[in-house]
């Protein structure tokens, strides 16, 4: 039986450098990721964290940094309902295809039927659609994202 994984591919008219920046720069993520800012020094082994309005939402360790081709980090949701689930992993692969960049997001090492699997399966298409719009048109998508739990299980 395969472990559940979520794979999403999108094509974006941009450069790999801009896309890399969009994935790793908090000012950028805050715009298309519905207010979630990332912070890290993006060195392998370092910690990273996403926060929304100062509240931590996702955190983990940087696993792979190979700019501008591949970025991977472990993923622990700060939502109390996800605390019993194991740490999952997210990998971004950036590949030029002509004048367009193919971006593949692979979220794996997920728990079967867990809340993380459910949340990320709904969340990644929104986040990546908004990222694509921002890079191509300069405007993010006006989406009401799913609410973030007020309580946080992250220290």
């Amino acid at each position, binding site marked *: 039986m395969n472990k559940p994984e979520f794979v999403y*591919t999108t094509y974006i008219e941009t450069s790999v450098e801009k896309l890399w920046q969009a994935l790793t720069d908090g000012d950028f993520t805050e715009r298309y990721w519905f207010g979630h800012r990332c912070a890290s020094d993006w060195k392998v082994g370092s910690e990273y964290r996403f926060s929304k309005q100062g509240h931590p939402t996702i955190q983990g360790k940087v696993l792979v940094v190979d700019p501008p081709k591949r970025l991977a980090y472990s993923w622990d949701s700060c939502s109390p309902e996800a605390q019993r689930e194991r740490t999952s992993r997210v990998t971004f692969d950036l590949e030029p295809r002509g004048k367009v960049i193919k971006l593949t997001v692979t979220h794996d090492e997920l728990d079967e039927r867990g809340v993380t699997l459910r949340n990320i399966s709904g969340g990644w298409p929104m986040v990546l*659609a908004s990222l694509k719009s921002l890079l191509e048109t300069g405007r993010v*998508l006006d989406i009401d994202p799913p609410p973030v739990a007020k309580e946080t299980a992250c220290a």
Partner: protein
Amino acid sequence: MPRPEFIYVTYIETTPEKLWEALTSSDFTKRYWWDTRVVSDWKVGSPFSLVLNGRTTDVGEVLEAERPRRLSYTFRHILNEAARNERPSRVTFVLEPHGKLVKLTLTHEDFAEDSVVIDGISKGWPAIMSSLKSLLESGEALVIPLDALFIDELEEAYRS
């Protein structure tokens, strides 16, 4: 063992009417779908086909056409012999208003056992849907080299 299916969700700043037009009009599809023309009168039971550079690549039958909410057709790839001999699979588009956007859910399912088609469609749909979103939002489709997708079944079509 769950049956294989391909599901792709995206959010597009457009209206359901425009998106419906983009999925069903060949003037639109040839702009974002590598010059592919979609041919059908979109009545339930009518034939449907995709024509690329003058060659029919895929055929099927319209199953549902509930403008502008739901479109479904059977799908059989006919360029490649192994694919031609498979029974048809099924493609469904669901268009849902989502605030000022439209949530588009594409489901491609009901594949034959050991389908040779699923690999090609899994590579093709993300590129097609990405280019469609770009066209509707920015007015420009994406230029994605078809041969960079490595879809074996379409090799002949883009070489000829």
